[in-house]
């Protein structure tokens, strides 16, 4: 029995080494990227100019010293915060609506003791929708959503929610699959309906774990808000992209500072509350 395990692992290692070698060969050999060229005098000059611009050397208007730009940046920061909360809210709602039929032990009826003809169909459909939503990055969702909605924080939140509900759904369905099935089966055999099973059986035992995942995803969403902003979905990212195009380098610094503060706050809060839930 030891042999197959050994071969699959070694096979994976070889594939990995091959992939790494091939990709570096591709980057260096085929695409003709060279490190020496990267650090040519011209490039260093550009880089120097860029970083000097960031700290405000030789700029006429220094954004992080003016009061107006600060108040503008803080307004954008609040918007970004709202966008991230909205996004995690939407994806949580959708996740709660779909997570029960998406768990394998619900679909095959071992958890609820009732098996309907459509439960496997539902299971498959929801799992496919999870894979779809998970595999497409939020930026691509945002590019599509922005065709439908006008620029603002709503399309950003929808794009982020579209990507994250698949991840949340998968993680939470796994939690339900791992949960202790005895109390829930008891409820089901006492005649509880679908909603009652969810409220009194599943939720109490999985909620702490769900909360951990939701907070973890919120932290990640916070970090990606800036990215969906790039395509015009509002918040700090949109302004960041605009400042980048107008070469207003000091504004970039200001926005980055706000963004990093937001990310660090989200990090801290989610760490704290994870501790609290434990």
């Amino acid at each position, binding site marked *: 029995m030891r042999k197959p395990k050994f071969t699959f692992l070694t096979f*994976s290692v070889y594939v990995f080494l091959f992939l790494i070698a091939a990709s570096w060969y591709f*980057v260096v050999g085929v695409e003709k990227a060279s490190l020496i060229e990267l650090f040519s005098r011209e490039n260093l000059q550009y880089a120097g100019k*860029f970083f000097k611009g960031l700290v405000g050397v030789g700029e006429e208007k220094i954004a992080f010293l003016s009061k107006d730009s600060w108040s503008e940046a803080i307004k954008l920061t609040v918007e970004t915060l709202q966008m991230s909360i909205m996004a995690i809210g939407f994806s949580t709602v959708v996740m709660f609506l779909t997570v029960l039929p998406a768990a394998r032990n619900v679909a095959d009826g071992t958890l609820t003791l009732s098996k309907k003809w459509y439960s496997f169909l539902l299971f498959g459909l929801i799992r496919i929708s999870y894979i779809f939503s998970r*595999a497409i990055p939020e930026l691509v969702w945002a590019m599509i959503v922005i065709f439908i909605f006008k620029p603002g924080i709503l399309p950003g939140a929808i794009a982020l929610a579209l990507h994250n509900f698949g991840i949340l759904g998968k993680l939470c369905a796994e939690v339900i699959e791992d949960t202790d099935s005895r109390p829930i089966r008891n409820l089901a055999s006492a005649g509880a309906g679908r909603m009652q099973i969810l409220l009194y059986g599943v939720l109490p035992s999985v909620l702490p774990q769900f909360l951990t995942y939701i907070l973890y995803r919120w932290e990640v969403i916070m*970090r990606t808000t800036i990215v969906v902003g790039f395509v015009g979905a509002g918040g700090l990212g949109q302004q960041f992209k605009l400042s980048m195009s107008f070469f207003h380098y000091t504004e970039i610094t200001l926005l980055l500072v706000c963004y990093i503060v937001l990310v660090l706050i989200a990090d801290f809060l989610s760490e704290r509350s994870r501790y609290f839930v434990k």
Partner: protein
Amino acid sequence: MLSFDLHKRKLLTVFLLLIFIWSLLGIHWGPELFHTGGMATAGQVFAAMLQPDFSAEIVALGIESSWITLAYATAGMSLALILALLFGILGSGVLASGKRSRTFMKGTFRGILGFMRAIHELVWALFFVASFGLSPFAAVFALAIPYGGILGRIFADMLNDVPDEPIEALRASGASRLQCLLYGYLPAVKASMISYSMYRFECAVRSSAIMSFVGLGGLGYQIQLSLNDLNYHEVWSFMYFLIVLVVLIDGWSTMLRKRISI
């Protein structure tokens, strides 16, 4: 699991709901949220989803861009692993001898790791492109830095969670700090390190796809071009390439993780 009581939990639920409602108030709800004809566009986009364009030309382009995406992701990830191992081991403080030097090392290197991962990879990519131009190295470095930060922090946490007893046994038999690391800490965390890196590899492929948004080639670039042409059929065919790529890597990593954990 249920260490905090029902009362607290209800409070927390109400609180979270209130925050969500506050966030919803930030929008002026109304029909002006949509573009005129936005719904028709939505219909076209979703109709195109069922009939992607799989002509020979598009398939060839799709395979080529999938390879570019995978290559950038792998190259970035291999660099990120080196960074993560280096900073993770230093940041866990297992190599430090005294108590004060340990706190110092932990503080410095964890700070560096925090900074690396606080900035999103696309922002790093924008910076690198702004200063170096459109070189593939911009994509590789932009991936390597934030992923190095994330992996490094997790590696450091894993190293800190290693139980003390085996390490003390090694120390008692006269092993140096380095030997403790090589024969005590690393073997203990090897399996979880590999499985976490595999999980991150899948994320790196997705990130590498969107990296092309700043002009570096790959699947995301093609998606963007087709979107600008309003050719939704092509958009979806590239999307399907991306989905297949991600699902393949996901399947591989699940298989590998199952084997390792046994």
